[in-house]
């Protein structure tokens, strides 16, 4: 009896809690706070934060592996986050399903009306690769313990695309997955703070006031064929990007084809919501003190900020270059939307444009590079998976 009482006491969190776990629970609560109070990507950061809290409760066993006896009979079931992480994230299933849903939510119309904006989506990926160099330098200098695979996974934060970052990290650097996902979603939420100073620094008021010509209307047929064209090009040139872009285009085709509206509706509602809940809990499970509380996390957070900034700058500079050579004028602000972070970055471009000229509506024009950035970072992800993994 006293023995059992002692056992019960030994089971409590008060007895077992280690400092690292305490700190990580606080980090989880901070994410919850940012999600609810500051509106930081709440759909992901709330489940991630709760997931981080739960996985760090000592003795709760959320990441416990199931135990089987010799005959294959389960003697002790695994924890919830164990099943979620190994079933949905390690396998890549959840990010791919999310990407399908995002595809079903994406309108490529503005991009199809002005395909040149794809170049802006390409330029903004420079943030990714510049960050890879940064991480490699930190690793080569011995300051931090980054391999090439780690560096590639860190760089993808600059893609400003959550599911892509999680997919790549789960394949190249699972130990860094938690920090990478948190950095990616946090900076995506911070886009309205990170981008405007860079945009103002690199453009003059005249440039920011440039009006762009009304986009041509896009036909239903173009919207239907486009995702198929992308899939074929991916199949030809970069099969390692096919999982991401294939599911993305599948979702988009369901949206646009008009004959499977009930599937498209489910992909962008019930299915993506269910997967988002579990994805968040699964990512949160990687926010353990061993994986998160170290110098590398600081490096990742710092490099992620650099990645966003360089990507933004690269997009703007490319837009300025295109403006010089293009017959139609291009407002350099829309280049910043090339980092993706759909649709936040496009809204920021619109807002900064309106500050310079109250009649200047850039939102539609910025949506082109914005969705192009999604394709661009998926292509970059494919190159990384092929280069590092192959």
């Amino acid at each position, binding site marked *: 009896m006293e023995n059992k009482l002692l056992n019960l006491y030994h089971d409590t969190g008060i007895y077992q809690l280690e400092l690292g776990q305490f700190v990580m629970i606080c980090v989880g609560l901070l994410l919850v706070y940012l999600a609810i109070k500051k509106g930081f990507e709440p759909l992901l950061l709330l489940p991630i934060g709760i997931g981080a809290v739960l996985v760090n409760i000592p003795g709760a066993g959320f990441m416990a592996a199931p135990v089987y006896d010799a005959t294959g009979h389960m003697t002790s079931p695994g924890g919830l986050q164990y099943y979620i992480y190994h079933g949905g994230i390690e396998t890549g299933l959840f990010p791919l399903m999310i990407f399908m849903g995002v595809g079903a939510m994406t309108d490529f119309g503005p991009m199809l009306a002005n395909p040149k904006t794809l170049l802006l989506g390409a330029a903004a990926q420079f943030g990714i690769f510049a960050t890879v160099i940064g991480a490699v330098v930190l690793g080569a200098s011995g300051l931090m313990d980054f391999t090439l695979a780690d560096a590639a996974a860190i760089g993808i934060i600059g893609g400003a695309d959550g599911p892509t970052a999680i997919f790549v990290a789960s394949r190249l650097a699972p130990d860094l997955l938690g920090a990478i996902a948190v950095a990616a979603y946090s900076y995506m939420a911070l886009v309205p703070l990170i981008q405007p100073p860079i945009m103002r620094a690199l453009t003059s008021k005249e440039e920011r006031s440039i009006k762009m010509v009304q986009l041509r209307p896009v036909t239903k047929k173009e919207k239907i064929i486009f995702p198929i*064209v992308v899939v074929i090009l991916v199949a030809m040139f970069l099969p390692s990007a096919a999982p991401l872009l294939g599911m993305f285009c599948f979702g988009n085709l369901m949206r646009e084809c008009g004959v499977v509206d009930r599937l498209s509706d489910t992909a*962008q509602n019930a299915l993506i919501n269910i997967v988002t809940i579990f994805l968040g809990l699964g990512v949160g499970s990687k926010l353990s003190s061993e994986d998160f509380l170290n110098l590398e996390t600081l490096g990742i957070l710092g490099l992620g900020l650099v990645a966003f900034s360089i990507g933004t700058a690269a997009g703007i500079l490319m837009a300025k270059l295109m403006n010089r050579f293009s017959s139609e004028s291009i407002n350099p602000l829309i280049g910043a939307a090339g980092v993706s972070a759909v649709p936040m970055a496009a809204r920021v471009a619109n807002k900064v444009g309106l500050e310079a000229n109250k009649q200047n509506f850039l939102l539609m024009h910025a949506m082109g590079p914005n969705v192009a950035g999604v394709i661009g970072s998926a292509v970059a992800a494919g190159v990384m998976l092929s280069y590092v993994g192959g």
Partner: protein
Amino acid sequence: MNGLLEDGLGLMVLGMGFVFLFLVVLIFATGYMSRLLNHFFPDVPVGPKKSPTAPAVSDSLAVTPQMAAVITAAVHQHRNKNS
């Protein structure tokens, strides 16, 4: 350790090169597709896509036979009246 740096640089060059290459090809492919489509199948442009929370179009099975019968009968009556 130098190997790591070299690999990183290689990844950057190859990566940015490939991203540009792919998206430039996509620009041409997209433009070509649009021109082809608008030439062979001139079409009316579409308005904004309806919001994703709109109710799903119920598929064929969802039409109960009674409803279908009622509709058929009503259409038929209407035709007879007007002929």
